[in-house]
Every structure is written in structure tokens, then in C-alpha cells.
């Protein structure tokens, strides 16, 4: 996973959950971000789709249990799409 993708995902999470970017880590998740409920999770997924120009399935949406996992999945999808 490139650091660039993680940074972009952190930026989206920061905007969406209204927390400073420097407080959003790869480990940040619904467990430690109060505003990250199921509806905001869907908003997060839709924002990622728009930013990276891809479509995520509901099953992939469920796999994204942290900012880091989301970035990893995006990187993997971008890579498989580029091949």
C-alpha cells in the first residue's frame, strides 16, 4: 500500500468524522472514533468510491474496519484494476 493512498483515506476520514487529520491513524476505527457509526461508514465508503473512481461491494464495505484496512483494500483494488 502506498503512503499516498493512506494519506488520502486519512484526509477523507478527517473531513467526514470532523477530527484533525493528525489524529486519524491507520488504526482509527469505529471503536475509537465516536462519529463513525454505520451511516457514517456508508458515507465514508461513498466518499472513497468518488475519490478513487471505483465501486465497493457491501461485503468489502464490511471488511473496512479501520482507516488502514480501507486504504489497503483501495490499494489492492486500484492495483488489480491497473493490471
Amino acid at each position, binding site marked *: 500500500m502506498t503512503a499516498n493512498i493512506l494519506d488520502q483515506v486519512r484526509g477523507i476520514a478527517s473531513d467526514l468524522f470532523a477530527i484533525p487529520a493528525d489524529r486519524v491513524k491507520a488504526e482509527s476505527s469505529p471503536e475509537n472514533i465516536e462519529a463513525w457509526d454505520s451511516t457514517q*461508514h456508508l458515507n465514508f465508503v461513498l466518499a472513497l468510491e468518488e475519490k478513487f473512481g471505483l465501486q465497493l*461491494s457491501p461485503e468489502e464495505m464490511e471488511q473496512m474496519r479501520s482507516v488502514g484496512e480501507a486504504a489497503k483494500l483501495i490499494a489492492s483494488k486500484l492495483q488489480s484494476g491497473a493490471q
Partner: protein
Amino acid sequence: MPIIIQPYREEHEQAVREFNQRLMANGGSDDLLFFTSAKPQWLPKTEGANLYQEFFLALDGEVMRGGYALKHQDFQFSDGTTRSIGYYHHPISEGVVDAKYATLGAMLLKDAMNRAPLLYCLGMGGYDRPLPKMLMRLGWSHFAVPFYFKVVRPNRFLREMQALRTSQLRKLALDFATFSGAGWAAIKAMQAFRRLGSTKPAAFQVDQVREFSDWTNALWEQARRHCTLTAVRNCQTLRTLYSPTETHLMRLRVRRAEQDIGWAVIGERRKDEKYGDLRVGSIVDCWAAPQEALAVVSAASSAAADLGMDLIVSNQSHQMWIRAFEQAGFVNSTSNFIFAAGKKLAALLDPFAENRTRFHFTRADGDGLPRNF
């Protein structure tokens, strides 16, 4: 095991029955149960059809954890183009009784958004319900489709309308109004007031038809340009929605001097405790050019009254129909019938606030035909 959302097939029917039983055992209500037949009884998918329903299930192995229905239908947009859009309805998840599945509602909606990127919801029971609350937080564009009613028999309305009789004091007041005649006079005056300033439509002729046929195509062509969004209402669609087998609905052809000027569909609503023993008629759907809308509403309203309805109701979003209902003496009341468009659909409807006054949505555009009639 991860939850997977997939089309509902016959082999899943037992899992659906078990899901419904779990919900009922945990305090669920009848209106929260999912369809026990994999094949939709209303609008099943047929070869080449543009108007049909599909059901999807969220399965945890063999166990159902949720599901939803998706109706596909052609709509005409303001530029005259026609696109198929999806109507998301009956989402249900085990999350209502088990917090472990709280995220499932969002998963179901995401699945529907992937399958039908142009997606809308309609009805939903009011802004305080979970689905509209979620859609608002997702930034969907929305409004409440105005609700109109007309009291045909004021005394029965005052005696039976349970939604008004909410306390002993109100019951006493309503009973007094009924027996003194004051209630009758007040309701008649209110409805007459709504008609003030409106001209009576020129004489028209109404016929009940067994099914809609080719004459409806000309009306569709005449009036569709007045809508910025409407479900296609040509002959083929009308025959599907209001086939002769739907005997609980009445199809009306409205003419003047041998010329077709519009049509309407009316029906009697199923008993609902908020209406007590009232017979409630609904103007389910209607179509006409603007200058003939009042004639069609008057025709439909008279037909419902002749059938013995005590109260006539309708939901209408288009300003032309709203005006016609008001001119026909209908009164506006609080609506819990909400239209919400997903962002991709809303982008095609921009500017939404301006265009929405010419969207044509009625009860027929929701899931209400089998549920309410």
C-alpha cells in the same frame, strides 16, 4: 461467516420464514416481515419487462439476516429522456432486534445503490423513521409528497376517525359536533372555502373501463412534457400496473365531446385502525394535461363518493395536481409519504428544489398498491 447479499431464490424461502419468526418472537410487527415467496406476487420479472421487482437477501451462511426489495421502472426526465430507476423498499434487518447486525441496514442500501445507481425511496412512514433518518444523513434530496383529503360524510368522519379521537375530551367535543350538526357545517364550509375562486370544469363524461388501452398513449404524449420527472405512464405500463386482474381498483376514462382528456385509478383502502370503520377511497393515480386536471380530479372524486366512500385521500407532488385537488375541495394535511432521491439521481434532477414542484408522484409510485388496497 461473512454476510453476503444475493438474489432471493426459492431455496431461501425456509430461511425467510425462520427470519420472520425470529423477528416476531423478539417483538417485531407484521409490517416488518419479509416476503415469504421468492417470486414477487406484484410485478414479477418477466422476459423483456422494464417494470418489475426483485428481492435480495443478506445471508450469513444459510441464515437470513436481512433483505430488501427493488422495483425497476422507466422514468421520464425533464429533457425528455427515459431512464430506468430503482425504488428501494422493504429493507429489513436483524439489526432491529439484535445490535450485532446494526450495520446491516447500511450494507443493504449500498447493495441497492450498486445494483440501481439511480435510486429513490418513497413513503417510509415519516421523517422520524430509521430509513429516512439515514437517507438524510447520507445527503439524499427529499420532500414530503403532499397529502390531500376530502370528507364525503362529515358525521361518520367525526365519529369514526380514530386519529382525531385521541382523548376523552376530544371524543366528547367531536360527538357534540356530530350530533349538533356543527361539525358537518364546519367541514362542508372548509371544503367549500377551498373551492372559492375556482371555476367548475366544463362538462365531462366518465366511463369505468376494464383495462387501459391505446387511447392512453395519446394522453401520455400530450402531458408528459409538463413533468420534470414522472414514471412512464403509457398504455403498456398502465396495463401492467392496473391489469384487469386487479379487481380492487377502478379505472376511469374521462372524456369530453368524444375526446379523451384524462384517466384516473381509484380504490378502497384496506381497513386501518386510524380510520376506524370509515370507508376510505383513494385516488391512487391520475393523468391529464394541466387544463384538464380539475375535470379528472372531479371525476375521480365523484366516482369514489358514488361507491360509498366516507373519505377520499390522495398524495400528489405535482403543482398542477395540487392546484386541481384544492380547487376540487380537497384539504391538505400532514404527509408521512416522503420522496428521497439518491445523489446520482438527484444530480439529474438539478435544480432539485425548483424541479420538484413538477415531479409527478402518487401512491401508485410506491409499494402501496398491494399493501394498501
